[in-house]
């Protein structure tokens, strides 16, 4: 926006100064015509006036064209190489769309590197061509965006100057290294750059990738948060198979984090009153339960359910804050899964009961013991059952199934027969703050439950998944690892306690020990 304003101001200045020049010129013409040649004064005015307008029009057109030409050329060049934009090349890209903008920058870099490689292979003698190419590469290198170039062995072969400054790395520690060795990147999900690169080399010829909220840990341990945009081009003659551009968004994300921290702090204060509330309800139930009328007993259950929901809400927010601060840690202990699951479902039963839902259980008998952090897994179950209740629609049934899956892990699913969702929605479901836009206004929630579920389960070494069909319901599943398998892994790795880290985070719950 700024640039175009400046451009416009510049053009206006040019034209205004041109007009002044032309007016001076036309006054001279008028004077000459009138004074020396003796033409009628009225005619002289008209001639000079017409001349003035014509001249200024031609002049402004020329100036505008000269100023805008390089920009147009750039847009044409970028559109020419941008994959997936071929069909829309008649209209310029919408730079408001952040992804497109970031992709385009990547493409430009790619284009320059490609040109450079053609240059070196074909026209080494053409010195002016070489010079232009060197200039082009220089421009890319001087862009204020850290940019890394990797070859087909995924080794860094080039880095823009700003990348070297940004990553505060010595060139020797950057060039010739793999990306993992050179920079510590922490991705918010399993979709990591390394995995994407592997995938690309297996299945793709050319493609682009985009990541948000990637943590970059610099050598001095400071942390930045970036968006990444990457472009892959198989066997690029320039050797630039991967071009990765980093967009520093630390400030932007910091703001989000600060808000979350504030909420977490406030919510922290809610824990005690909520727990006391639950405590007093427990006392009521224990000591009065049998003497109350059916209606009052029902009210008491409802109180218990409401307090339980509040607890989940509070814990969700606190746990997300812990994940963000790399402080959530699991302590996995051996547990009889059938027993554990049944006792958790017993707790959930109050919730399903007051909503008139039948909670069916199909739990296999021969499930081996598993390694779980009970507090965290309880949150997973509570979140999944809560979701099933929220999105039940008009149905009256939830089915929980658990058995050993084909991969040897213990699979557990929670199935509802409610509103369901289209496949376009399911892909983003496990992301933070994600809420389905169709139901956002009808069903309350924070968009944190499934994000947490995924974080907790992957910390357990398991996986989460979802199958859903609009109008027919959803099945959410997760897997946990048999204890024997964990134990074996443990002995091999030589750790004393079963502590598994995911996304590089470390613990809090371990204080709750025996």
């Amino acid at each position, binding site marked *: 926006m700024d640039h175009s304003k400046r451009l416009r101001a510049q053009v206006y200045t040019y034209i205004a100064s041109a007009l002044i020049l032309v007016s001076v010129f036309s006054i001279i013409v008028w004077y000459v015509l009138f004074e020396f040649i003796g033409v009628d004064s009225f005619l002289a005015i008209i001639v000079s006036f017409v001349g003035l307008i014509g001249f200024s029009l031609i002049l402004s057109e020329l100036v505008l064209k000269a100023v805008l030409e390089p920009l147009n050329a750039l847009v044409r060049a970028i559109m020419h190489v941008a994959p997936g934009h071929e069909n829309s090349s008649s209209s310029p890209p919408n730079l408001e769309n952040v992804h497109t903008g970031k992709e385009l920058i990547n493409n430009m870099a790619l284009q320059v590197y490609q040109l450079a490689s053609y240059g070196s292979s074909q026209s080494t003698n053409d010195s002016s061509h070489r010079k232009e190419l060197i200039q082009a590469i220089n421009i890319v290198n001087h862009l204020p965006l850290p940019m890394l170039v990797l070859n087909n062995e995924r080794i860094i072969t080039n880095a823009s100057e700003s990348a070297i400054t940004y990553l505060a790395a010595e060139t020797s520690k950057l060039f010739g290294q793999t990306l993992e060795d050179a920079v510590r990147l922490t991705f918010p999900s399993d979709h990591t750059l390394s995995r994407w690169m592997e995938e690309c080399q297996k299945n793709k010829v050319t493609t682009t990738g985009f990541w948000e909220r990637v943590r970059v840990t610099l050598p001095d341990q400071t942390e930045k948060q970036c968006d990444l945009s990457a472009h892959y081009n198989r066997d690029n003659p320039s050797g630039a198979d991967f071009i990765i551009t980093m967009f520093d968004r630390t400030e932007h994300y910091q703001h989000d984090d600060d808000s979350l921290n504030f909420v977490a702090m406030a919510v922290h204060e809610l824990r005690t009153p909520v*727990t006391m509330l*639950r405590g007093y309800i427990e006392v009521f139930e224990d*000591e009065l339960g049998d003497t109350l009328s059916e209606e009052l007993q029902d009210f008491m259950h409802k109180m218990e359910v409401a307090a339980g929901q509040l607890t989940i809400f509070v814990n969700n927010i606190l746990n997300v804050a812990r994940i963000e601060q790399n402080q959530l840690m699991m302590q996995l202990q051996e547990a009889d899964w059938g027993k554990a699951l049944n006792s958790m479902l017993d707790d959930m039963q109050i919730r399903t009961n007051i909503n008139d839902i039948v909670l069916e259980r199909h739990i296999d008998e021969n499930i081996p013991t598993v390694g779980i952090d009970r507090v965290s897994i309880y949150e997973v179950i509570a979140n999944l059952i809560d979701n099933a209740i929220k999105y039940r629609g008009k149905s009256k049934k939830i089915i929980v199934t658990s058995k050993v899956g084909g991969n040897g892990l213990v699979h557990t699913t929670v199935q509802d027969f409610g509103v369901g969702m289209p496949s376009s929605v399911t892909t983003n479901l496990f992301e933070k703050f994600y809420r389905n836009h169709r139901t956002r206004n009808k069903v309350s929630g924070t968009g944190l439950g499934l994000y947490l579920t995924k974080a907790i389960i992957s910390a357990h070494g398991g996986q989460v998944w979802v199958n859903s069909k609009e109008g027919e319901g959803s099945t959410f599943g997760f897997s946990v690892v048999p204890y024997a398998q964990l134990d074996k892994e443990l002995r091999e790795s030589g750790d004393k306690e079963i502590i598994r880290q995911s996304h590089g985070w470390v613990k809090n719950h371990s*204080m709750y020990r025996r």
Partner: protein
Amino acid sequence: MDQEQATTEQGGRKVLIIEDEYFISELYVRALKRAGYQVDLTIDGAIGLQKAQTDDYDIILLDIMVPTITGTEILEKLRDKAEEPIRAKIIVTTNLEQSEENKAAIERQADAYIIKAEITPKQLVEFLNSVG
């Protein structure tokens, strides 16, 4: 059924609660008594320490933030700097995040640690039942 079993199993183990938050102590006392424990409560750190030193208890629930003497000092006097060791299991209770220094001290000297805000009376009883 389970509860009755727990009650008989506990056979009147003695618990000392050093806790100045009224709601919390009220709930704990009630729940523990119901589960068959003998419960003694004090809201004052110095008195708590005296009582603890009589070595008359099986379990001590020690809040880190109590008046007159802090929980950390009491813990130290009962463990690291104890004139005579006591047999009671010491369970530290708190709501606040502890400094690294405190955490290390608690981990070294206490037998267990619970976060009050995360544990309901029923869970506390289960927890104490499991503490040998």
